[in-house]
């Protein structure tokens, strides 16, 4: 039997990107869809992981918040590569014994650590920024150059290369960034966000601020889905590309639409709050008493924190 399906339907679907001159360009609609989808998927992943059973998941959010804040400060105070390495070892060991998906956790920590720690700091290993013993020579000029004065001076030595002192600085900074990220993600992977926000109460953060943070997070999640839907609706109606100026106008119009939508939602929420008897006073209650396990974990974290501080 003859195939009656029109040929254009038999063709594979078009790529979500447009071809530029020799390179692939991702349209702003695709970027928007990806960004919005990432916010929603990150929130789902966080909820999923935080609800698993594991060593840290069983501990009260307030204790974990204390652990996070004290250890982040300890990480920022350490000045030696050895101490930072030991701290990193301790954090990753904790992550391994807690039931977090270790590969996903490491990928996230090292990706951001590499980006914000190593890559950003790498040029500082050059002798132009950190003078010292050159271990990898890169360039040699006929003579040295000097410009500017005081703290805004530029000195270009005759030979440019990576110094030993510079590499030590890059390593220290990278370890510090990696350790801080490892701590943040460890607590995030083992604690539902509303619990983390409620836990801020132990830091004497005003209740009204905590409620606002919780509400904003819920709004963000809700409206991130709206943004994704808006972008997808636009994408599905685009036969070709969207010109720069009309694209900018469209984005501005959608931002304004979001503003109106958030305002309307705000009114609805306020009416609902009044309907439930809200009397202009925000009070967070319902914290359970810390169990002996929480106290033991808190004590263990305190001892470990003091140990690493003195290391």
């Amino acid at each position, binding site marked *: 039997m003859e195939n009656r399906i029109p040929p254009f339907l038999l063709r594979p679907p078009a790529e979500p990107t447009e071809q530029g001159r020799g390179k692939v360009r991702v349209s*702003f609609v695709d*970027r928007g869809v990806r960004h919005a989808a990432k*916010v929603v998927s990150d929130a789902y992943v966080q909820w999923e992981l935080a609800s698993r059973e594991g060593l840290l998941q069983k501990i009260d959010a307030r204790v974990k918040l204390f652990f*996070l*804040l004290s250890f*982040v*400060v300890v*990480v*920022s*105070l350490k000045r030696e590569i050895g101490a930072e390495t030991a701290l990193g070892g301790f954090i990753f060991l904790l992550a391994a014994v807690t039931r977090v998906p270790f590969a996903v956790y490491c990928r*996230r920590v090292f990706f951001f650590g590499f980006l*914000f*720690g190593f890559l950003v*700091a790498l040029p500082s290993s050059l002798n132009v*920024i*950190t003078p010292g013993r050159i271990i990898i020579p890169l360039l040699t000029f006929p003579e040295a150059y000097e410009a500017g004065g005081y*703290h*805004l001076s530029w000195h270009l030595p005759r030979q440019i290369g990576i110094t030993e002192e510079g590499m*030590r*600085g*890059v390593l*220290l*900074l990278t370890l*510090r*960034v990696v350790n*801080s*990220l490892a701590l*943040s*993600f460890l607590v*995030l992977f083992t604690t539902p*966000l509303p619990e*983390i*926000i409620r836990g801020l109460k132990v830091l004497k953060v*005003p209740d*009204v601020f905590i*409620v*606002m*943070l919780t*509400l*904003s997070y819920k*709004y*963000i999640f*809700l*409206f*991130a889905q709206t*943004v994704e839907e808006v972008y997808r609706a636009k994408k599905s109606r685009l036969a070709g590309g969207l010109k*720069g100026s009309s*694209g*900018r106008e469209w*984005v*501005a119009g*959608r*931002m304004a639409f*979001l*503003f109106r939508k*958030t305002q309307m*939602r*705000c009114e609805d929420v*306020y009416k609902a709050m009044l309907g439930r008897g*809200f009397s202009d006073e925000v009070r967070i209650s319902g914290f359970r008493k810390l169990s002996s396990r929480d106290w033991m974990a808190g004590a263990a974290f305190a001892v470990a924190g003091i140990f690493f501080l003195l290391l």
Partner: protein
Amino acid sequence: MHVPDGYLSPQTYVPLYGVSFVFWSIALRKMKRELSSRSTPYLAMAAAFSFLIQMLNIPIPGGTTGHAVGAGITALLLGPWTAVIAVSMVLIIQAIVFGDGGITAIGANCFNMAVVMPFVSYWVFRLVRGKATGERRLSPAAFLAGYTGLVAAAVVTAVEFGIQPLIATGADGRPLYAPYPLSIALPTMALEHLLLFGIVEGVVTMLLLKYFLKHEPGIVYTVKEA
């Protein structure tokens, strides 16, 4: 522009937490006085709006895309003190949930993007606009407000980075935190924001304000105030 953990020394991030705390306290008191019980959902809404602005990519001439911080337009639409709380909440959520910006650096990030940026944008807008009400004056005022606000925040961030090699060094003189001196941090941050990101921020601020002035001028703080 989000400062990660590890780049600022305690002698920088602790005072910046203090400064941000002062601004949060004043802003919360002002909000409660002006909006009463409505302030809680209102500020949460403003925060969600600031966050969402950062999700929308805008095409820039030259074939690339970028997103705005949104602190400037939030200040123009809702007022600078509302912007302080709204943008701060976004930055706190970004630091805790998405690892975007450090936890020790929350004070610094809030000072740069939730204090410096909204106030600079707001005052630049007021100065450039003068007493004019027409679009011919308001549009450039909005562009400059967004542009200058972001560049000012970038310059303050660059100074915070640039002073690290001066105030926190090891026994051998090696920088322990952000390694780049002012002579590198300042021109690098200033140039990329003057030539690229500032333009995106300015365009978003101008287009959004233009849209609101055309369709709903009554809800724009800077128009209501005039």
